[in-house]
Each structure stands twice: as C-alpha cells, then as structure tokens.
C-alpha cells in the first residue's frame, strides 16, 4: 500500500514501484481453460475448475421423442458494473469508543462488519460500519472488498484515518466484473415447437478468486434458472465455474439471469424458426400456464403466482406485433431491416434461507428485522439493516409504516446504513429489501400499533379493539387522540398510562421471513422493435415495451425507476458493454471511451405497463423488483435483431451485439449461401 496525504502523492509513490515478475502463461478463455492441456491458475487444483455441477432430469426419455433438434452456442462478454460512484472506504480507530469505524460505499454494512471481524481477527462489537450515501451498487458493493480490509487494517495499525476511493480506471481494470457466460444449448421439441427437453453446457468465467461471501454460485444458479418461464420435461445441464486470470466475478443485477434469459430466448427463437412458426406463438405455448400456478418447475423452483402467457400476450399487443409484421413485408425506405423480439422472464426475489444454505454460502440470510420507534413528538423512526442507495426505501418503507400506523410519511424517518443503529441484516441484494425489510417493517408496525392502541384506548376510555388508526391519530367510539398525545403520555406523562401497559413501550423490534422462503417470483415480458442497418451492422431500438408484475406495487414511480434503470443496464449488456482481454490477459478498456455504457441517446423511451399478481407467501403480496429490468433486455433485443436478420439468414449469438458482430454474422450468412 502506498500511503500519502493526498491521492496524487500516493500515485507518485506507486509510480516509483516497479514489479519484477516471471510471467507464466495466462488463462484467459474459460472454455479453453477446461482443456487438459490448459495452463493452470491454481496449480494445486490440477485443473481450472472452481466448481462443476450437473443435473439430469429425465433427459433421455424426453429428448428421444423430439421431432426437431436445434443446437446453438451463446456468449456474453465480461462486463463492468459501473455504479457512478466507485468503491470507497475511510477507516479510523475511535479511541474513545475503542472501536474501528469504517465508512464504506457498500450495500451490505453488517456483512462487511462480519467480514472485517473475520479478516482482522477482532470482535464484531469493536467494529462499526457506516454507509451513509452510496452512489449506486448493483451488486458491485455486496461483497467484502479487499480494500476495506486493507484500509481498516492500516487505520488500526497507524491510528489515524485512512481513506481510499476507487477511480474509474481501477474499476475497469481491477474491480470485480460480471456476466461472462458461455452456453451450448440443444433444444428438443415437437413439430409445433413445444419444448420436450433441453441440454445445456454452461461455462462461467469466475476470474482468479472467489469473492466473499458469494462464493461461486453464479454457475449453479445459471443451471437452475435456465428453464425460466418455460415448461419442459427433460433437462440435462452441466455447469463449469472456471478460474481465469481476470478479476473475480460478482453477482451483478440479475446475476446469472440476464445470461440464461438471453440463452433460452435465442433457443426458443431457433426452435420457432426450425418449425416455421411465429416465435411469439411458440413462446406462448411453452410458458407456464396460469392454471398451473403455483407451479414447481423442473429445477424445483416454486413459481408462486402469475399469468405468464397473458403477460406475453399484452406485450404482443402493446408492441403491435401484427403492425410490425405488416411493416416488415413492406420494407423500409432507408434499407434498414426491422425486427421484433420478446423475452418473458421470471425474477426470483428475496430468496432466503433455504436457497442460500443449499448453495453453501458462508453467510445465509434468515429473518429480517426492523426496529420501529414512536419518537417523542409523535414521529416514527424505522431502523433497518438493509441499505438504500437509490432504491427509494426511505419512501417505500415509510409508506408501509404509514399504511399500518397512519403516521404521515413526512414524519417518518428511515434509518439505515449504520451498524451502530440498525438491526443485523445481510443487506441489500437479490431484490430482497422491499419483501424482507418491508415485511419486517409491516410486522413490527403492527406490534407497535397494538401498544399505541392500548394507550389510546385507555385515554379514550374504550376497548383496544375499538380503536382505529388514522392519519396521525387514533379514533375510538367516543373521540380521538393524536399520535403525538400518545407519545407525550409515554415519554412525559407516564402517570396517565394504563396499568397493563406494555413496558416495552413505544419501541419494538420484529422479524419477518416469508412463509415460503424460496423466493417471490416477479415476472414479466420485455418486447423490442429494432432497426438493423445491414450496411453497418448498427442497431437502433425503435420501440421498447415492458410488462411488469412485482405483485402489490408499493410505489409505482419507484418500481418504474428500478425497472427503467435495470433496462438501461440490460441495453448495455445487449449492445454496448464489453471488457475485452487480449491473450496475454491485458484488459483492453481502461476508460469510458473504450468501455461504453448507454447514455440518454442510446436508451429509447421505455414504455412500461404494470400488472399486479400478489404473492400468496409474502406480507402484502409484495415481490421484489430490483433486478428484473436488467434480466430481459438482451433476450428481447437480440431476438429482435435476429428477427430483422432473418431474411439474410444471419443470426447473432454473442453479445454485446456490436456493429462488428452483426456485420460479421451477415457476412458469414452470405458466405454460407454462396457455398450452397
């Protein structure tokens, strides 16, 4: 570590260090890394496999019934997550509290505390982690960062504050990455395109080391999620999580699902093409029908509720499928090719104990807790262990409390992001916060409400059951008292309290976990119309429709914000974002002119439509929504690109679908047809 008063001076020091290493051959390609003659990253392993998994469920039995077999290879580029604020950590030893205080740009303050305690060998009670305002996370900040450990250690050693803020180059070339999956998928279907069986081989490039605590679960998750919203009876899947000379892979918004959604949608398109039918129709027939809900799918996922086909149908209508088909027949004046694509998806949200325990993760989420306190003066303070960094939980959790207690949202303060004040939580990730923390806030507010009502009933001289909570007040059969009066009585005039008052007072902590903790399944469909310029291979998104169902909508604007943001990232995955490496392992995009993220001009106006199918298992029927937006765009957009390219016989199966890839696909198709 180079330590100096300013970052500039620290960089001066870095410049004086030069590394003298004997180079070993680099392992860059995860698929090739599986070969027995590959160079080895961790020699003691004898191979490069972090983790292999395999599933075989009635595969042979159903595959052999197929009339149509299609096989494809898909590839997703390595991506950087690029929250606008990078990582950052400031640590000092508080002499008075005898405590290590760590300010971190993190989604998971409590988890960081646990991790720091393990790494530094000090008690968790001697550590306080604060994450005040965090400039975006998206999964990048849901792990213990090496820098957090290093800076905290240094602060303890040196007994003065130490700070490190990641810069963009560090983020690009050395920060953790995401997405790099490779698929070989073979689909077995009948003449109508009904899927019978699927065979998949998934290779995930997890980089050189695993991250803590999400050790290597992306490959297995991909295997489990590949079936998506579809039904089939035979499934065989082999996954390989491979070590390469790259930064570690972390769970980025959607985790493995943008990859599997892309792979399955391309496969369904290929099946539809093989049987000569409208791809949207083939999709409709393969989706889990509403009548089967709740449905346990082939990989044992419990789809709790929803009408998947009707979601697709409304996407077909909103995007005007018939209109696009008619327009395609006419052709475009400018010579561009129009295509339309669909991607139905499921988003397992707030999956809990059972799922994570099965993955063997060192830190398994359990009950989520919230502490709620009626403050002197009649306000409400909610303390949660999740972290809000743009998700608007300050608003949505307050809304839930308001719904239960009637206290005006403007008087509710949500406290989060500080281990000193909030109950333990594994944090914000996996679209879990509104379900888990929302549920906990709801449950706890009910507890607190009962105590408030007891006091109110006493003041109004009625029975507790007769008291209703309304905006900032309680109403009984013979009058009303304000919430403020309740607080005043408890804090300032206890002489007026009933004898049987709950001595716990106006502060309660409650916990919550959904009845079924394998996740609430948000679902939806994305649909895109694109224009491909066949001369250049460039793609313009002409229309983009999102049909979204996350159960009960706590706040439509927040849900839309989450979905739009996710979709913009998905557009990045589909068309722009890529961290290429050369054979020597050099990352080739160390700045934002090389690593392209979509700007306002690259994201089209997104048209969103909600449906609401409450989850039968969660409090208020809420499902999570953080990741869904990012899952389906590659599926929908590349499906649309391939639809556009269909007259040319070309297909793009590798993303981002850059002009170079699209043009190369067109050229390859031309070369093929010339040969025939």
């Amino acid at each position: 570590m180079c330590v100096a008063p300013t970052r500039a001076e620290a960089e001066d020091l870095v410049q004086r260090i030069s590394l003298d290493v004997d180079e070993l051959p680099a392992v860059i390609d995860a698929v090739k890394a599986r070969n027995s003659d590959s160079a080895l990253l961790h020699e003691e392993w004898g191979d490069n496999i972090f983790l292999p998994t395999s599933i075989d469920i009635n595969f042979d039995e159903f595959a052999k019934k197929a009339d149509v077999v299609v096989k494809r290879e898909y590839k997703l580029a390595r991506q950087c997550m690029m929250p606008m604020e990078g990582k950052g950590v400031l640590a000092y030893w508080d002499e008075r509290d005898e405590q290590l205080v760590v300010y971190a740009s993190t989604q998971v303050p409590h988890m960081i505390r646990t991790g720091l305690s393990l790494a530094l060998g000090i008690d968790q009670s001697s550590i306080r982690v604060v994450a005040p305002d965090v400039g975006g996370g998206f999964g990048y900040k849901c792990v213990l960062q090496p820098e957090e450990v290093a800076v905290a250690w240094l602060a303890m050693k040196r007994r003065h504050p130490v700070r490190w803020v990641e810069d963009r180059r560090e983020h690009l070339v050395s920060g953790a990455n995401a997405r790099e999956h490779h698929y070989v998928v073979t689909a077995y279907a009948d003449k109508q395109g009904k899927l019978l069986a699927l065979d998949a081989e998934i290779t995930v490039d997890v980089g050189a080391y695993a991250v803590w605590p999400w050790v290597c679960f992306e490959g297995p998750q991909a295997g489990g999620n590949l079936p998506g919203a579809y039904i089939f009876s035979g499934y065989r899947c082999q996954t390989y999580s491979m070590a390469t000379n790259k930064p570690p892979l972390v769970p980025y918004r959607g985790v493995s699902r943008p990859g599997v959604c892309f792979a399955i949608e391309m496969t369904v398109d290929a099946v539809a093409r093989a049987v000569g039918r409208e791809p949207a129709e083939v999709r409709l027939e393969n989706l889990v029908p509403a009548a089967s809900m709740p449905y346990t799918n082939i990989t044992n996922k419990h789809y709790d509720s929803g009408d998947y086909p009707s979601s697709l149908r409304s996407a077909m209508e909103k995007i005007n499928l018939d209109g696009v088909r008619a327009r395609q027949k006419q052709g475009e004046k400018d010579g561009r090719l129009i295509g339309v694509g669909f991607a139905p998806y499921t988003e397992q949200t707030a999956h809990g104990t059972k799922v994570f325990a099965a993955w063997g993760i060192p830190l398994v989420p359990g009950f989520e807790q919230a502490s709620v306190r009626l403050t002197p003066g009649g306000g409400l303070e909610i303390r949660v262990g999740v972290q809000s960094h743009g998700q608007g939980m300050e608003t949505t959790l307050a809304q839930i409390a308001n719904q239960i207690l009637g206290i005006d949202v403007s008087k509710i303060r949500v406290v989060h992001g500080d281990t000193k004040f909030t109950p333990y939580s594994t944090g914000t990730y996996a679209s879990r916060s509104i379900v888990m923390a929302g549920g906990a806030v709801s449950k706890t507010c009910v507890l607190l409400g009962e105590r408030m009502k007891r006091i109110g009933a006493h003041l109004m001289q009625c029975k507790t059951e007769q008291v209703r909570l309304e905006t900032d007040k309680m109403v009984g059969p013979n009058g009303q008292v304000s919430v403020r009066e309740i607080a005043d009585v408890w804090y300032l005039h206890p002489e007026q309290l009933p004898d049987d008052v709950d001595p716990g007072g106006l502060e309660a902590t409650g916990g919550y976990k959904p009845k079924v903790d394998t996740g609430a399944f948000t679902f939806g469909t994305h649909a895109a119309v694109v224009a491909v310029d066949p001369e250049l291979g460039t793609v313009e998104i002409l229309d983009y429709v999102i049909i979204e169902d996350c159960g009960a909508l706590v706040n439509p604007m927040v849900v839309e914000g989450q979905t739009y943001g996710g979709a913009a990232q998905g557009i990045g995955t589909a068309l722009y974002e890529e961290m290429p490496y050369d054979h020597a392992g050099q990352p080739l995009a160390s700045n934002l002119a090389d690593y392209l993220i979509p700007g306002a001009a690259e994201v089209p106006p997104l048209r969103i439509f909600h449906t609401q199918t409450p989850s039968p298992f969660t409090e208020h029927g809420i499902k999570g929504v953080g990741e869904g937006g990012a899952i389906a765009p590659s599926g929908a957009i590349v499906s649309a690109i391939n639809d556009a390219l269909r007259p040319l016989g070309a297909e793009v199966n590798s993303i981002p679908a850059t002009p170079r890839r699209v043009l190369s696909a067109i050229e390859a198709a031309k070369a093929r047809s010339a040969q025939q």
Partner: protein
Amino acid sequence: MKAHSFTYERPSNVLEASRLLAEASGEGRVLAGGQTLGPMLNMRLAMPKLIVDIGGIHELKTVEHFVDRIVVGACVNHAVFEDWIDPTPLGQLLSRAGGSIAYRAIRNRGTIGGSLCHADPNADWVTTMSLLEATLLTASTKARRQLPMSEFMLGTYSTALNPDELLVAIDIPKISSEARWGYYRICRKVGEFPEALGAVIFDQPRKVGRVIAGGMNGRPLSLPTVAEFVAATGKTPELPEVEKAIQESEPGFDSVDLRHHAVAVRRAILMALA
C-alpha cells in the same frame, strides 16, 4: 487518476510561450482547452515537466473573415463554431463539424488548435481541415511557418510542429455559396469519437471536388478518383467501388472496418447530392 506534479506557466503571448517551451527542451507541453491533455495528464499517460497554458493569449481566440478565407485562432472553442450564425455552406459545415464533437461541456472548452495538434486520426477537425485544405500558421521564436494540413499531420498523434513551436491560427479558404458538402460520422454512441468519418465537398464554381475518409489509422485519406466520378456524373458510387478505392490507398483494413469507412464516405456523398 491524478496528474503528476508539473510546473505551470501562463504566458500572455505566443513568443513567450515558445521561449518557455524552448527552455524546457522537449519536456514542455502546450495546454489549450485541456480536453485531451487533461485526461492524459490524469491518467499519467502524459507527464511533461512543464505545462504552458495558452488560454490567456487572447489573440488566439479571434476569428477573422476575409474575402476568400477565414482565419481562425488556434484557441477558438468548438462551441463557437457550433453556435456560428453563418448561412453559407462553409459556415454550415464548420458548425456541423464543431457541433458533432463530444458534448457541449467539452465543446465549451476544447479548441480547434488543440484538436489539430493532438492529431488524433478520429478527430472531427482533422478530417474537416483536410477536406477544406486549410493552411496552418505556426510560430516559434525561431521561425514562422505555414503548413498545408497534409504536411502538418504526419500520422497518429504526430505533427510537423517542433517542440517549441505553436499552432497559432488556421487559414481556411472559403468555399462558394453553391458548394455542396456532406459530413457523416459513424460512432457507437452520441458524443463518441467517430470510428469512421466521411467528408466531401463539391464546389462547382471553384472546381473543387474532394472526398475524404477520416478516422483511418493515420492521416485522413483523400479519394480523388471517387471525387472525380461524383463531380463528373452527379452520381453516388456503389459501395464496392468506394471500398475498392479505400483499399487501394490503404490496404490492411479488415472487412468490417473497410465497410464502415466506405459507408461513411458514401453517405457523406449522398448527403452532398441530396
């Protein structure tokens, strides 16, 4: 991403600037708008000992109109061109080129001279000034020179400027009011450097017909045969013709890059003929 430590001077005239640069014997660097040098300093790709800020030399910010030419100071900002109220074809072309660069915040500070001196093949001014056959006026304490654009830029990031020499102004010949031009950028994102650039001009009264492919791996490429064809026929050549013309002068592009360059050129021609 913090710059290394350097010495800073802000002279008030060109000769003073040149003298400072000469004293730095190759270790000095001019700073104009800083929109290229700034990032390079932050990334420590550039680490000159001395920075000579020419932002305080007001004369470099002037624009002079003559009957047959416009002489633009090296430190005129891209946004000045973007906002140019000049209905002539030249005014429109300069406004289009200047307004295509990056984003408004960059255009407010970046300068035409800085862009030309940096000699990035993908830069808009590099292509535009080649198209217009501008002459670059330079100065140092030892000499003053005027270099045609074709001799000014030697290759990627490489110009004929001596270490103590400054670009002071760009002398742009006027084009006639009947001239037609086309300008087409191919870029992945709005505001990005174009990966390929086509710039063409057909000025019948002045008998000037020129077709330039920009964003090559080095200097912009002039395609006189294509220009002659268009001028003589008023027709747009087919794509393979343009590809052939580019490949003849600059072989070695793979098919995708070649295609992009040819499409840029062809679409610029289509624009000029529209």
